[in-house]
Structures are given as structure tokens and as C-alpha cells.
């Protein structure tokens, strides 16, 4: 390290602007890199290019009007964000949700989680230079989007959940489609393992790259698959089960070292676990209402606050809503997982190669608009 300091401040170090427009920054992220040759001496992520003021919008809107905003924060797991928001508001207003709606929400959320992970899988391989897995993953993701399109009517920003239920009931066709998808994925996992997981080049590119130690992860508040890759089985679906997650039998995959390969494996196995959850939920999907009948159009929850955490595709996400009794929140704060996941890169990137930096950046699965909010 002392040698590193010696090199700083002389003409060897030059800076490189990675982004805001770069093929691998996934959105408008800019990282100011100080490089020595191809080694990174210092990394300073610059964010905020996609800041839209969702929190301020939340304060100026009614609860239901803010719902469409939520899926635009993390557009890759819009269903999960919708889901979390309705959970928060239901908790705040004390609305009960019918069982069927709970199951449907879980199925839709898990499908969305798989689609988000599949997109990450594809783009991560794209970052590493493999183009074909990206298109295979998108092929699979397309199936999920079709399923979600069939129930919600849109493919990315769903606005499917409602306070007290969901907006549309599912039919047999949906169940068939989902089952067919689960069956299809069985064969695909094998293909992906052959094509990517076992690939010697891939393993060499990711093993021991971008190690986030458990202590570092804790310091920065890293959550989600990135944390689980460090060996902690921390998942909001398990630690504070919401909806009906406590009724399902699923594992929380963990890694050991916290390197990029572990993060990859954890996400990969998480997709398989999500499939298991969906399978069980389809099995036990009850009949009945999908909407609580007594939810007023203009919802005015009582005074108070609620902090509702849920597991989005990227980690622990939480809505912090403070109500003053009016139809809109007094304060609407969103805790986003990518914030900590990007922040930790301040410590992880220095000392790595530019090529590694791309591999690390891809492996933590950032969605920049989620950070910018």
C-alpha cells in the first residue's frame, strides 16, 4: 500500500471517465477512475443523472397515484416494487388482503424476480464479452413478460397490485403458461450451466474478482444476493416473512467468498428457488376474491408511520411512509438496495484492472435509476 501512495500524485496516474455513456454502466452511471496503466487507483462513482424526485412526487400525490411511480424506480423488478408499496400502504391503513390475491402477488413477484435475474444474467455475460447467453436469457425472459403481460397488461411497469388485492384475476391459461415456463426452464438451467457456469473462461474471469468481505458488506449495508454471496443467509422473505412466504419451502442460496463467481452462483440458484416457490404457490392457489371490497377510492390512512421491507431482486428494499391522515403521505422515503451495493464499490474497485471493474460492476447487479430515484 505504501507504494501505492507513492505513485499517487505523479504523472503516472491518469483519469478515465467510465460513463455516463458506456456500454457497461447499465444506465447513466459515471465512474471517475484514476488509472495507473490498466490498474485502478481510485474509483469515484458519480450518480444522479437519472434523478426524478420520486420521493418528492410521493409527498405531492395520493397513495394510489404514487403506485405507478414505484415500478419506475427499478424498472426491472417493477412488480416487486409495486408489491412492496401496496404492502406498506396496506399496513399503514390496516387493509386485509384476500388469500388468493396474496398467492397471485407472490407468483407474479417471483416471476418478476426471475425475469430480473435473467436480464442480469444476460447483461453480465454481455459485460464479460459473451453475447449469445444474453439472447438466450432474453428469450426466456420473454416468456415471463408474456405471462405477466397476460395478467397485468404491460410488460415492464406493471402497476398490477392494488391496495387490498390485485387488479385482474388469473385464469387457467395463466396457470398453464406458468407451468409450461417452469418446465421449460428445467432444461434451460442445464444449458446455462454448460454454456456459462462451467466455462473455464467465465470461471477465470469471475473467481476471486471483486471480493466483498462480510465486514465490508455490513459497513456499507450491502444486501440481497451480494450479501448472501458472502455467506449470510439473510433474506427478507425469511427474516420478516410478508404475504405467504412463510408457507413455502425454499432455500436461501449462499456463497462463501463473496467474489463475483459467488454472486453469480447465488443469483443463478435463486432463480431456481423462485421456480420452486412459484410451483408451490400454483399448487396451493386458493379460490376466492382477489380484491378486498371495502377499500375507499380516496385512501386516507390514520396518522403514523410504517417501514415496510421486502426483498426486491437486488436486496432489501423498504418504503418508509409517514402519514398525517391526508390522502397522500407526509414523507415517502425509499430505501434502495443498489445504493449500498454501488457504494461498496468505492472500496472494492481500487487495485483491480479495468476489465475486472466491468466484471465487478456487472456482478453486483445495479439498476441506476433505482439509486437515483
Amino acid at each position: 500500500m505504501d507504494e501505492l501512495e507513492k505513485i499517487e500524485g505523479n504523472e503516472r496516474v491518469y483519469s478515465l471517465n467510465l460513463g455516463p455513456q458506456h456500454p457497461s454502466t447499465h444506465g447513466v452511471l459515471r465512474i471517475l477512475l484514476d488509472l495507473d496503466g490498466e490498474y485502478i487507483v481510485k474509483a469515484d462513482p458519480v450518480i444522479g443523472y437519472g434523478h426524478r424526485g420520486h420521493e418528492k412526487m410521493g409527498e405531492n400525490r395520493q397513495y394510489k397515484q404514487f403506485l405507478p411511480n414505484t415500478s419506475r424506480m427499478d424498472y426491472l423488478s417493477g412488480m416487486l416494487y409495486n408489491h412492496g408499496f401496496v404492502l406498506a400502504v396496506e399496513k399503514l391503513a390496516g387493509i386485509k388482503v384476500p388469500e388468493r390475491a396474496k398467492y397471485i402477488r407472490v407468483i407474479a413477484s417471483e416471476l418478476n424476480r426471475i425475469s430480473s435475474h435473467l436480464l442480469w444474467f444476460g447483461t453480465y455475460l454481455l459485460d464479460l464479452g459473451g453475447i449469445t447467453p444474453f439472447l438466450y436469457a432474453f428469450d426466456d425472459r420473454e416468456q415471463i413478460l408474456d405471462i405477466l403481460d397476460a395478467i397485468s397488461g404491460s410488460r415492464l411497469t406493471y402497476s398490477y397490485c392494488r391496495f387490498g388485492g390485485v387488479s385482474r384475476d388469473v385464469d387457467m391459461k395463466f396457470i398453464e403458461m406458468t407451468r409450461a415456463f417452469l418446465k421449460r426452464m428445467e432444461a434451460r438451467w442445464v444449458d446455462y450451466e454448460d454454456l456459462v457456469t462451467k466455462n473455464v473462461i467465465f470461471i477465470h474471469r469471475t473467481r476471486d474478482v471483486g471480493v466483498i468481505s462480510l465486514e465490508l458488506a455490513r459497513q456499507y449495508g450491502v444486501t440481497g444476493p451480494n450479501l448472501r454471496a458472502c455467506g449470510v443467509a439473510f433474506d427478507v422473505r425469511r427474516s420478516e416473512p410478508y404475504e405467504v412466504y412463510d408457507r413455502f419451502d425454499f432455500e436461501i442460496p449462499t456463497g462463501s467468498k463473496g467474489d463475483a463467481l459467488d454472486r453469480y452462483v447465488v443469483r443463478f440458484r435463486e432463480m431456481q428457488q423462485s421456480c420452486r416457490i412459484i410451483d408451490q404457490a400454483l399448487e396451493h392457489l386458493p379460490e376466492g376474491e382477489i380484491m378486498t371490497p371495502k377499500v375507499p377510492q380516496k385512501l386516507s390512512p390514520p396518522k403514523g408511520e410504517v417501514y415496510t421491507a421486502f426483498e426486491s431482486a437486488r436486496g432489501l428494499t423498504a418504503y418508509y411512509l409517514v402519514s398525517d391522515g391526508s390522502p397522500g403521505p407526509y414523507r415517502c422515503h425509499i430505501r434502495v438496495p443498489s445504493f449500498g451495493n454501488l457504494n461498496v464499490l468505492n472500496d472494492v474497485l481500487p487495485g483491480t484492472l479495468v476489465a475486472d471493474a466491468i466484471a465487478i460492476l456487472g456482478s453486483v447487479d445495479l439498476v441506476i435509476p433505482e439509486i437515483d430515484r
Partner: protein
Amino acid sequence: MGYFKDIFNGGLSLIEGMGVTARRLFRPLVTVQYPRKKIPLSSAYRGHIELKIFGESGTHKCIVCLNCEKTCPSGVIRVQGEKLKEKGPKTLTSYVIDFSRCSLCGLCVEICPTSTLKYSREYELVGETWADCKIDLLARLARQVEEMEAEKKTQGIAA
């Protein structure tokens, strides 16, 4: 010997990967040539909103209550109505949406007391100017009514 084993296993994994791509070479394609071939829309598809045509009256049922305009989070909808008679409901004179700002949340459809709003099945919505994104729903309705009548006529002739 670990050296040669690594090389061998590495090579094997590469060949396995090539096997996966090679198999795909002979599978049917999954994409379609879009403008020539179109995929059927899902039944739930939500395009921009439009006014529903009710069979008995052959027109919409908008009562200009302005609920949709008020509930829209993005200020998409502009509704204007006039009182044609001294007593009685207002009549819709203009219903324009600015689709470029719409977030397709569907609040307007849900809140409409007469259920006269519905999602269209329009998805080819390219525009070159902001003005192209402004959709006059009344004009659209008139067009649709005309088309329906024309269709009825041809059907009548055929019958």
C-alpha cells in the same frame, strides 16, 4: 499433472459450451420479422385509453365529471364539456390525452363512474413531434363509429 488436467478440463468445458450453441443452430427461430408478422396481443393489453362505444346509444357515456382528469397523476387528460340544456348533464365537447406523459397506471379507467373509458389495443404509436402524442379521443370515437357503420353496411350487403 494438475497443469495438464486444468488444460484438459478447461478445453472440455469450452467444447461443452460450443455444443450448446451448435444445437441452437438447428432449432427454430424465436423472433418474428416485426412489420411483416405480428404477435397476437395479450387479452389484458393496455394501450392508451379510449372511449367505449355502447351498443344501445352508439356512443360514449361520458358525463364530464372530471374524475379522470383529477385522478390522473401525470396530468394527461384534458376534458371539456358544455351545458347544452339549461337543466341536465354536461355534454362532452373535447377529450384530449397527451400520451407522451401517460404512465398507463389505469387510475382513470378504474375511477370512471360510467365505465366509459377502456384501454385501446393500439401499440404502433410512433410520433415525430409532441403534437403527434396528443390524441383526440372524440375524433377517434367518431372514426370508430364510422368504421363500425361501414362494416355493418358491408355485412348487410353480404347478407
